[in-house]
């Protein structure tokens, strides 16, 4: 009986220790591939104190994560696109998180995240003419912000942690658009940058 109790105690202690080490049950991103979904903020703000009480704060870094690696609009019917104005929603919403722990700026727009759409490319069964037709369509975030070939400011923010509000993404075509069958791909280039001061002189 005593032996069993000792075993039980060891197991419980072991389980607690294991829980601490493995974070079992906590939802966390995979970092097995170069596609992180959580920022590593362990060295974001390092404090080093010396005996004469001066404190030096070393700035941290800035990072972008939690963005979906692709968005699919599925299959669009050629007849539907020709006869109606269509707004085809993507299979997932736009999400993004930005960490800015550089510790230098008080500005409300210390960083800017821009989005730029490329030109459509024909894939399997697609044609160059079909890609050009899609160039005339609009890609919109939340039905309002057009993501086009000139970079658009998608979001700005202050230093700290910012979890951007989810936004739907849609491909908008107007009636009389004659799509061509096939696979078509495009890219959105997301660029995170320190904002040049609006009073920069």
């Amino acid at each position, binding site marked *: 009986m005593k032996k069993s109790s000792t075993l039980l105690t060891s197991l419980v202690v072991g389980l607690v220790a294991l829980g601490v080490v493995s974070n079992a049950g906590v939802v966390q991103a995979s970092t097995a591939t170069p596609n992180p979904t959580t920022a590593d903020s362990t060295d974001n703000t390092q404090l080093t104190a010396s005996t004469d009480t001066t404190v030096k704060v070393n700035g941290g870094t800035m990072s972008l994560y939690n963005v979906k690696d692709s968005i699919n609009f599925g299959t669009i019917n050629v007849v539907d696109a020709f006869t109606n104005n269509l707004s085809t929603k993507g299979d997932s919403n736009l999400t993004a998180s930005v960490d800015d722990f550089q510790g230098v700026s008080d500005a409300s727009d210390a960083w800017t995240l821009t989005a730029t759409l490329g030109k459509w490319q024909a894939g399997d069964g697609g044609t160059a003419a079909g890609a050009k037709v899609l160039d*005339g369509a609009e890609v919109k975030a939340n039905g309002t912000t057009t993501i086009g070939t000139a970079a658009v400011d998608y979001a700005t923010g202050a230093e700290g942690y910012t979890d951007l509000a989810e936004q739907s993404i849609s491909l908008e075509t107007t009636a009389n658009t004659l799509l061509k069958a096939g696979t078509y791909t495009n890219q959105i280039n997301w660029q995170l940058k320190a904002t040049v001061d609006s009073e920069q002189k």
Partner: protein
Amino acid sequence: MLMDKENQLKKLLMALLLLLIGSFFFRPQTIQAAGLPFQVMPVLPSNQREPDEAYFDIIAPANSQTKLQLKVKNITTQPVKIRVKFVTLQTNNNGQLDYNMKQTRDHTLTYDANQLISGDQQLTLPANSTTIYEAQLRMPASNYDGIIAGGLVLEPITAAAKVKKGQIGITNRFSYAVPVIARNEDKTWLPKLQLASSKLVQIDYHNQLKTRLNNPSVTFVNQLRVEQVVTNLNTKKVYRKSTSKMQMAPNSHFDYRLNLPEKIPTGTYQVVTTAYYVKAKRAGYLAGNQQRYQYRQKSVNQVVVTG
């Protein structure tokens, strides 16, 4: 009775043992998402002009060389390859500073920042490692009375995600830009703006009115607001557009665009374009957004639409 308790305890021990073994196999739940696989922080040099900026804004004499250092951290468990590009800052057609453009070089630009920055254009970071990347900015050999504006762009070299066969899809790519601004001495310059005549163009099947704005000055045009009113002189139909919070790079240009209907009636259109820039509380020019600006530039021209 004692046997029963011992059996119960054995069962409990067995359950805990299974739980312990199971926890080795059931790893934390994962979410597939993407982003930049690295974090970046500029290491500001001693000749930094403003310490509260998270980008390079330096004062450096002619022909001098300044180290542009970036602390780059791989936050993944895989090695990461990064491409580094040196760019000249331009202004895109949304009136925003742009680090990715392949725009025609502005005719007023004296020095391309991308020609003055040098360094490795590729780096590889082992898993979970941090490194200091270093590029060099060499100022022009003779004194330059103005601002040199460019940037360092870092992008991971990875294969893009694929779109399913027969479908329409978008893949996301990521990059990080660090502005680089430099001047020979700590002085400022007055901004200038030029408005060109508007033209009707068709881009990707859309009719647009294009008006070129040019910043011929060696400094930024800040807090730019454009108000445009287009009137069909026959029908008196009016089209309007206004945009605020724009910013132009030194010696750069962009085309302000106003969308017009697909079937635009023929006739003569009057285009009135007013640009305001540099906000100040007691400045002389009041714009449509009820904000006051130090500078205003106005142009009026006519565009003829034929059948």
